């Protein structure tokens, strides 16, 4: 599963970690995040994220 980076603040969504503070379990792919999920650090939506090329 790919990591995604927030274009605005640089936060990295790591599917292995999920976003437990906001109810997203570890192991959740970025694509499976709910549509209303927002960056936990700067609040922008999923459309402001880009895949991290590794």
């Amino acid at each position: 599963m790919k990591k995604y980076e927030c274009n605005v603040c640089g936060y990295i969504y790591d599917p292995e970690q999920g976003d437990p503070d906001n109810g997203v379990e570890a192991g959740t792919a970025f694509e499976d995040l709910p549509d209303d999920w927002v960056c936990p650090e700067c609040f922008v939506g999923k459309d402001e994220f880009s895949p991290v090329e590794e």
Partner: protein
Amino acid sequence: MTTSLFANIDWVGYVDWTIRDFHGYHTSRGSSYNSYLVRDTKSALIDTVKASYACHLLKSVRELLPLDKLDYLVVNHAEPDHGGSVAAVVKACPQVTVVTNKKCQAILSGYHDTSDWNWQLVGTGDTLELGNRTLTFLETPMVHWPDSMMTYVPQDGLLFSMDGFGQHYASGNRFDDEEPLETVLGEAKTYYANIIMWAGKPIQRALEAASKLDIKMIAPSHGTIWRSHMDRILAAYQDWVVCKPSPKVLVVYDTMWESTAMMARAIWEGASQPGITAKLLYIRAGGYTELATETLDAATIAVGSPTLNGGMMPVIGGGLTYLKGLRPICKAGFSFGSYGWSKGGAAAVQRELEETKFEILREPLECQYRPTPEVLQECRDAGKMLADKALSLACAAEPKS
């Protein structure tokens, strides 16, 4: 007016003695917009002031340097209290190159016509040689906006920390050892709670990055400069980034006909146990600013509102909206309030507390019209429960010895 930090590094900002409302934040002691001038073979101005005070900034710079000799303007953050005079400086200093990061450039270009500005874009680890001194840059996104950056002068161990470690505090002196320390720390706490409480994780990362630097002085963009008590402000930040709970109970309320006030006082009485600091905050007296500040280090919080038009009182609603955005973590509490012919206020408060991710300690504590002696006893018991919970949360937050 200027003040020397080191030889040829001077504060050239503006002290705002009159401001009391900083986009809703009650700045009871005013503020300052700190700008700094570094004179070397090349000269650099670090940040500016609010647009309305540009003439004061330019006058201070001119006392030290002809304006046409300013080579660089470093912009660590585009928000108008710091970036507001960038356009005026560019206009007054024809040679100047604006040194900033890509995100800040985009924001500046959203606020100003930047079409004829000279730019030099920098990022973390980049340096700018001025002669004997070097500026090095550290991007610290979300401390306080995506563009936020700090600038470090290794030769002096001087960190221009932008909004980090700042305070809304107007004073005649520029340094922490020239002002009453507890007052300055108190204003730093109010600033943290009201401006950046929600950014705990990005601030933790910034603190970690800054810990690798040899820092002898921290020059923020608001308030006094830290040179003698850096240990105190750095230790305080370590607590604040995790909203570390102290053995403190906060009881916040609004009231119509004093019933919710009676309940609030009874909860507060019950919470006033040995080893506990219990505070009672009437929201219309203390306002949102005090609510945020008192929440930062409280362990448990009760929020009360009578029922008005089937819901909560609007001032409590506004306060809870403000608090939710500031995202305090690790808080526990419950709602309370009186009602008349129909309920709604306390339940609406409880929903907001749930959305703010409070641990909810009990169902809303409600009473119809006037609290009976039995209800007031229930309030005291609930207050005691808040105190017990606060002690256990504060104890759990202390490092194990």
